[in-house]
Each structure stands twice: as C-alpha cells, then as structure tokens.
C-alpha cells in the first residue's frame, strides 16, 4: 500500500526547475509550450480588459499565474483523452487539444459562433468534439462525472484516461470523497488534478485544511498521491505523464496536487482583503512563464517577441468574436432537449 501512495514533494522555490531532459521534453517542443502559456496569459489579460471596458458581462475567474499547471498537464496527455475542467478553466481549455481561441473568445463574448453558441460563457466552455467535457460553474462539479467517464473508458476497453481538475476549495466537497473512493475500488483511469492556488475565494488553504498537503488524502483511498510545484511546467508534466501511464496500464487513479498561486482576485468583485500585496508579489516573482523562459535560456527580448505573437493571435480571436453574430432570441428555447 505505502508504495502506492508515496509522495514526491517538489519545492515551489523558483530556482529549482525540473530539467527538460529529465522530463523528456525536447527543446523544440518546449518552445510551443512556452507559447501556449503566453497564449493563456494574453487571453486572460484581454478578457480582463474587455470586462473592464464593459464589453463582456457576468463574471470570470482568471488563472493568471497558474499557466504552467494547465500546459504541463495537457501536454502529458493524448488526443482522445478526456478533460473535466473548472470554473477557472481558460488555461486548461486553451492548453487542450484542438482548441480554437476564436471560438473560445466568441463564447466568452456570448456569440452564436462560440463553442456553446453563447449559452454557456466563461464558466461552461466545452469542446465535446475534442473530448473537452467542459468547464464547470459548480466547485468540484466535474469530480463525480469523472467516475462515469472512467467507467465508460473501462467498459469500452480503450486506453483513454480522464483528467478532472478542481481546486483546493473543491477538494472539501463531499462528492470528491465519493469519487476518489469509487475510482480506487474500481481502479479507474482517472487523474485527479487539484490546483492548490492557496485560496478558495477568501478561504486560505491553511484554514480549510488541517494537513500540509492535499495529496496526503490519497492514502485514505490507497491510491497514488503526489504534490508537485504547479509553477514548474516540467514537474507537472512528469506527474501527469506518470499518472496517465499508470492509468493506461490499469493501475488506477492518481491524486496530483499542483501547488500554485492565483495572481488576480477570485472574480471581478474581489477586494482581496484576505491577503497582502507582499504575498502576491512573492508568488509573482515565481512567474511560471519567466521560469520556463529561463529554462529555455531565452532573453527578455526573445520572450517579448513571443508574447507579441501571442497577443496578435488573441487580437485575431477578439476580431473574430466581435464580427460574429449574437444568438437569435427567436431560438432561445433550443437545446434544452435532444
């Protein structure tokens, strides 16, 4: 048993990055990964801007600062695997297979051309054709669903895996307990990725938990548990890759805790009275994008050039979205039933 729940701890100290060679990530591929992180960062910065300009309504949850977890995780999986995403899901969605930023931005802006025809919005973006089963407005809402995806994979006898993402806050929902137990007793090919970004809205991880690492809970179900530096792309990549290998080999689920930090407020209406500017600054010093650029040995100029490329791609997405039609009110009742 103990061997099934041994935990490799990787420090969040920005200096100690997992080397790409150890991770088995070829340098040329690495550049694309950096680009993906930049795409996420610029998508969300643009989303923020559009929101403050009043060009989108509602609310949104930005994952700025958490890009390494999203890109590291998706990169370790295969086209055909499944994703169950969270309310803070722009990053995972953009990092996932075949995602088109145009359709994402169109959905974000509530347009008919969006992934969900403007019916879902930021918290519900899905691309079912690519087995991206959607973001979820309900904390841990996708976690029980992962049981069914895992069962379905087993029954269809494919070698797919299902990755379900949730937050530190979500980890305390009862449904997570039921899901982890069922995945364990049935040995399901499910990867539970907990993004521990230190807060659930205003609730600090340290007050919502009486344990130092969420991955310790894996032992309660006798499954693999591991805590990794969520700001170290290669570290996340390794953890998810290993979990996927085990899952495909019929060795069941893994609980991965990616330790990271939310740079922005929880949502647009957050005054952040629950944390200090200094704390935010400290974590920003570990910017996963700069860290990865550092690993790739890029100069600031080179990084800025890439950032510029990303920004252009996102501008194109905004242009596409703005040129897209609004949903027709006459079709408002469509899509309730099949």
């Amino acid at each position, binding site marked *: 048993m103990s061997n099934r729940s041994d935990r490799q701890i990787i420090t969040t100290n920005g200096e100690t990055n997992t080397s790409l060679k150890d991770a088995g990530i070829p340098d040329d591929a690495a550049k694309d990964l950096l680009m993906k992180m930049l795409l996420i960062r610029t998508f969300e910065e643009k989303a923020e801007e559009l929101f403050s300009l009043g060009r989108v309504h509602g609310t949104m949850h930005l994952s700025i600062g958490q890009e390494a977890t999203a890109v590291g995780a998706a990169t370790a999986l295969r086209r055909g695997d499944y994703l169950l995403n969270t309310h803070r899901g722009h990053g995972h969605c953009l990092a996932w297979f075949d995602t088109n930023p145009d359709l994402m931005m169109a959905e974000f802006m509530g347009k008919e051309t969006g992934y*969900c025809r403007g019916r879902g919005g930021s918290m519900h973006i899905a691309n079912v054709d690519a087995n991206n*089963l959607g973001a979820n407005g309900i904390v841990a809402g996708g976690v029980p*669903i992962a049981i*069914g995806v*895992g069962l379905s994979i087993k*029954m269809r006898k494919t070698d797919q895996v299902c990755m379900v993402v949730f937050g530190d806050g979500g980890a305390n929902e009862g449904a997570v307990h*039921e899901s982890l137990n069922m995945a364990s007793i049935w040995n399901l090919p499910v990867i539970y990725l907990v993004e521990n970004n230190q807060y659930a809205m205003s609730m600090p991880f340290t007050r919502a938990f009486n344990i130092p690492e969420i991955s310790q809970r894996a032992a309660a179900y006798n499954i693999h548990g591991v805590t990794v530096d969520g700001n170290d792309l290669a570290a996340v990549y390794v953890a998810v890759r290993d979990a996927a290998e085990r899952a495909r080999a019929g060795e069941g689920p893994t609980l991965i805790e990616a330790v990271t930090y939310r740079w922005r407020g929880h949502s647009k209406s957050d005054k952040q009275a629950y944390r200090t500017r200094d704390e935010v600054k400290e974590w920003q010093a570990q910017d996963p994008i700069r860290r990865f650029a550092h690993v790739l040995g890029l100069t600031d100029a080179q990084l800025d050039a890439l950032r510029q490329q990303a920004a252009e791609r996102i501008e194109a997405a905004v242009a596409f979205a703005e040129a897209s039609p609004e949903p027709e009110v006459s079709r408002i009742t469509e899509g309730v039933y099949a």
Partner: protein
Amino acid sequence: MREITYVEAVREALRQAMAADDRIFLIGEDIGVYGGAFGATAGLIQDFGAERVIDTPISEAGITGACIGAALTGMRPVGEIQFMDFITLSMEQLVLQAAKIRFMFGGKASVPMVLRTPAGSGTGAAAQHSESLENWFVHIPGLKVVMPSSPYDVKGLLLAALQDENPVIFIEHKLLYKTKGPVPEEMYTIPLGQSNVVRPGKDLTVVATSIMVNRAVEAANKLAEEGLDVEVVDPRTLSPLDDSVIIESVKKTGRAMVVHEAVKTSGFGAEVVARLNESEAFDYLEAPVRRVAGLDIPIPYNRNLEYHAVPQVETIATEARKLIRGEY
C-alpha cells in the same frame, strides 16, 4: 396475454434492452447479488456480469455522476437510487449537471441516462423512506419525468426511456411492484409524452399518477354502481406533459380532479390545474378543478396514520361524488 408483475416487467425491460444494446449498464446500491432493494434487478448480474450490473458504495452523488459521465461518453447508464428520498443527495448532479449540460454546451452534447427510483408510502418505513418528489423534477427543464402505473406501461415506458437522448427520471412505486397485468413478451415502447385514457367516462375527468391511477379506477368502478361515469387519465410522462388528452377529456366531462400521493401544496396537481385554466377547457368547466393529494405532512410511521396521510380509494370516491353532484 401473459400476466407478470410490475417488478418483473421492469426486470424484463432491463434484460431485453441490455441484451440488445451493450452500451446499457446498471449501477446502484445492492443491485447485484442482492437484486435491488425491491428485487427489480434480481438475476441480472448472473446474466450480464458485474461489469454491467455494478454494485456501488453508498454514494448517491457518485452514482449520479457516474451515469452522467458515462452518458456523455457513449454509454447508456441506468442508475438506481434505492429510495426516492435519497435522490436528495443527487440533486446537484441531476439538476445543475445532467439537466443543463446540453443547453449550456449550445446543444452540442447529450446525456442519455435513466435514473430509476421507487417512490411512495405504504410500507411502514416512515418519513425518510416514503417521499414522492416528482414535481421537483417536472420543474427542471432538461429532465424528463416518467411515472408508470401498470406492468404494461412500465415495460414500454422504460424501453422508451432507454432509447431517449435525455436524462430521464423514472419513478416506480413500491406498492405497485407486486401488482400483476398483461405484458407482451417482445420488446415494445410507449413513447414518452403521451397521456393515456385508462378508463373512459363522461361525468368527470380524474387525472391520476402512479399508484393513484389504480385507486382512481377502483373508485370509478364503485361510482359506476351509483350510475356515475368517471374517466381516468394517466399522464404517464409528467414531463414533457401531454395535456391535450387531459384537455379533450375535460371538454367532454366538464369536471376535473387531479389525484396524486405527493403532498398537495405545490405538487404536480397544481400544474394540471393551471394547464386546464390556461386551456380552452376552462370554458367547459362546470366546477373548479379539485386536487386530491397527500396531506401536507411528512409520512408518519404508525400504520393507521400512514394510511390516512395519502389518498385512498374511499377518499377519491367521496371527492369525485361531491364534485359530480356539485356538492362544494
């Protein structure tokens, strides 16, 4: 025609559907070797194995999520919630996920799952094992709600539900499981969304659901001896509700009564009253539509109190008589 019980009809529908479509599997508590709390799945694990008849831990939210995830990825899950009361633990998954996923995803996904659950009182199991919560689900767009009253209907409706692309809440009744009736051996479907005139009559329309259909028919037969001619309509599918049959019936009889076991306040009966008011039947009404339903109390344990908490044949007969004779 061959006669079998309601529970045998459920089992036969499941067995035939599973034999015909290997995407279908069953998941729930004690549905395997135990055969289900009421025996609905008895023998199925022997026929189809533990991979397709899955016993679960006591985790209703997990069972429901398991159905949703499997349905989203090409399977046809049939979940069992051992007593309808426990569906209170599945509400987030059912209402915020299963019912809304298709709409939220712009119509680009579907969740073809059936959640079977036995409702109703009369077993002496008291307030936490006797719920009739169907109207909650009728209130949720994206869900279909089926409530069969006979062995024939339960087989045909279950087979139809298993072919439906939407999440279906399939509500059986504990006291109906042992009732017998003619059921064809072959597979057949009763389309969801078709009300059924169970007994024709001209003096009064009684719209009844689940076990109340049987009690209404019994009451109608009594009243027939008094020369009163009662028509009994069984919606069978509460959502989507086929009110055309009900409306036509009321236009003919001029009087209507709704009977259900669930508590009266904000129960399904209120929806039927409102539909009739909004329909052309309103002008034909010679008296206000009456609701005959469960008392607004939790189900008591004591056998006698339990009996009086929900409509019985006598209750229905008395109310119907009054209504026809204009004694209000």
